């Protein structure tokens, strides 16, 4: 039986998520794994925006910030359950992306870059400055999701790290499944067409503006959910989640791993999340190494890490 690329991707993901814990030397690695999944969800959104539709965003951390602070603020001020707060954050992010995206997606290349950058900086500035609401740069606490307690009552006793590992892993599978479905849908095909050539796409009757906007909104929702999960997992959040460097991190993870495919981008998320963990011994050299890795991969493996590795393996097989 030959697997379609979609089921193959999902199968690989599922196997990796299920089997990785076998190799974990300590409970700490569940936390690292959960962190990888959270980043991978945001990066899946970037694949839809940049990999499918060919648009750039240097401000997606702004949406992660909205998702994160929705989980921190809505339970306190609106009395919402944290899970509903996550949904509320996703809706707000989607609506904001819709409103902001309409005018700025007319821009191209670097101009789109600076416009999205501006948006991200505005969000992070509001989070930093509205002290009475957000606690300013010191951050604020986030209520417990409460699901782990429920599972415990039902007889499934997981450590905090384990719970978040499985929960975020599940969320990632769901997110990847939706993104893969999108890829093969009429919308996905149209997005890839406009990536190839906007003029050609318009000529065959594709509503370019509307489709770009759709990709932007979907990717914003992914970023928002990722921010929410990060906040709920850490039970604490600072405005750094919406900072410029976080936006860059998302794009870098996706492009480094291979923005053309979900699996590649997730691989990039894993590499860049693990890198600082590996480098903690050489903390002073962390930035130096990170910068070097970014440059070297982009120069020598412009298609991204995973596609280049796969090509090498296949090349040998033939």
């Amino acid at each position, binding site marked *: 039986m030959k697997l379609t690329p979609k089921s193959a991707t999902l199968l690989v993901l599922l196997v990796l998520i299920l089997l990785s814990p076998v190799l974990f030397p300590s409970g700490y690695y569940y936390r690292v794994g959960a962190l990888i999944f959270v980043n991978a969800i945001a990066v899946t959104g970037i694949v839809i925006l940049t990999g499918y539709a060919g648009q750039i965003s240097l401000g997606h951390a702004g949406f992660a910030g909205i998702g994160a602070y929705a989980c921190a603020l809505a339970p306190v001020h609106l009395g919402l359950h944290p899970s509903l707060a996550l949904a509320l954050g996703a809706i707000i992010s989607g609506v904001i992306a819709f409103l902001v995206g309409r005018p700025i997606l007319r821009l191209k290349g670097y*101009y789109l*870059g600076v416009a999205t*950058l501006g948006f991200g900086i505005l969000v992070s500035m509001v989070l930093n400055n509205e002290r009475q609401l957000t606690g300013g740069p010191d951050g604020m606490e986030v209520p417990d999701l409460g699901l782990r307690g429920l599972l415990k009552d039902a007889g499934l006793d997981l450590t905090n790290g384990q719970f978040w590992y499985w929960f975020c892993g599940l969320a990632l599978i769901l997110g990847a499944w939706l993104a893969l479905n999108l890829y093969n849908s009429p919308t996905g095909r149209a997005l890839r067409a406009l990536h190839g050539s906007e003029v050609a796409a318009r000529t065959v009757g594709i509503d370019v503006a509307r489709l770009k906007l759709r990709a932007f909104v979907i990717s914003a929702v992914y970023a928002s959910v990722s921010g929410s999960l990060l906040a709920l997992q850490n039970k604490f959040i600072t405005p750094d989640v919406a900072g410029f460097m976080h936006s860059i991190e998302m*794009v870098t993870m996706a*492009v480094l791993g291979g923005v053309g495919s979900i699996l590649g981008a997730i691989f990039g998320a894993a590499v860049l999340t693990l890198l600082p963990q590996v480098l903690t011994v050489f903390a002073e050299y962390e*930035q130096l190494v990170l910068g070097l890795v970014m*440059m070297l991969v*982009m120069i020598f493996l412009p298609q991204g890490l995973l596609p280049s590795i796969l090509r090498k393996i296949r090349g040998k097989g033939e």
Partner: protein
Amino acid sequence: MAELLQFLFSGVTVGAVYALVALGFTIIYNASDVVNFAQGEFVMLGGMLTFVCHAAGLPLPLAALIAIVVTSAIGVAMNKLAIEPARGAPVVSLIIITIGASIFIRGGAQLLFGKQIHSFPAFSGDTPLRIGGATILPQSLWVIGGAVVVFVGLWLFFTRTLTGRAVLATSNNRLAAQLVGINTGFVMTLSFALSAGIGALAGVLATPITLTSYDVGLAFALKGFAAAMLGGMGNPKGALAGGFLLGLLEALTAGYLSSQYKDAAAFVVILLVLFFMPQGLFGRKSTERV
């Protein structure tokens, strides 16, 4: 009135620094279509290297000269090692390469110079000059003068010298420039040297006012990028105007509205300008060729 004048003074000073950074962006963009996010690190290197040389006992002018020359060399090295090998890569890859370079330089500076905040003495003393009830530091005049001199120098270079016109030709059409015998590789090297040197000069001039540390580069890069886009990427006049406009906007917002949101004003205006003029204030209309 004196209050407004005071805000204008500080706005023009900051604006001059942004204009210098934006000019650096413009030169590299014209020569290679790359937006160099490491531009802010050149500003940091200019200030930081001047401090190190000055602290080692060299006279200030010599220290500044060394800083500018060394930074230019770093710019050239960056072009040779990171930009040229990636020629033709998509915009996203180029953004990641230059941001990688900026993180690399920042990490290196942190290792070599530590995390302290540094400064060195102002060129003409610290006694503020009084003009119309407001005060301005002599160093501010140095910064503003620096921006104007660099702009005029660049204008003369691009319009009156053969080498400058070769750079312009390369930015218009690389292949055609090659066909008429222009050494486009040299143009790239020259542009990176020039751009890094101008960035370093901005750092040398501004450090007595703004102070410097290993991590100041990112803020300069973002503001300079914004200023260049505001004016219309690739246009030196736009870079100058965008820089001063951004500085003034910030100073006026800080003075009359809220100092916390001074950076917000700049980006709100940029978003508005781009909504209505997608090519920036002075940008030329471009059409996609199919």
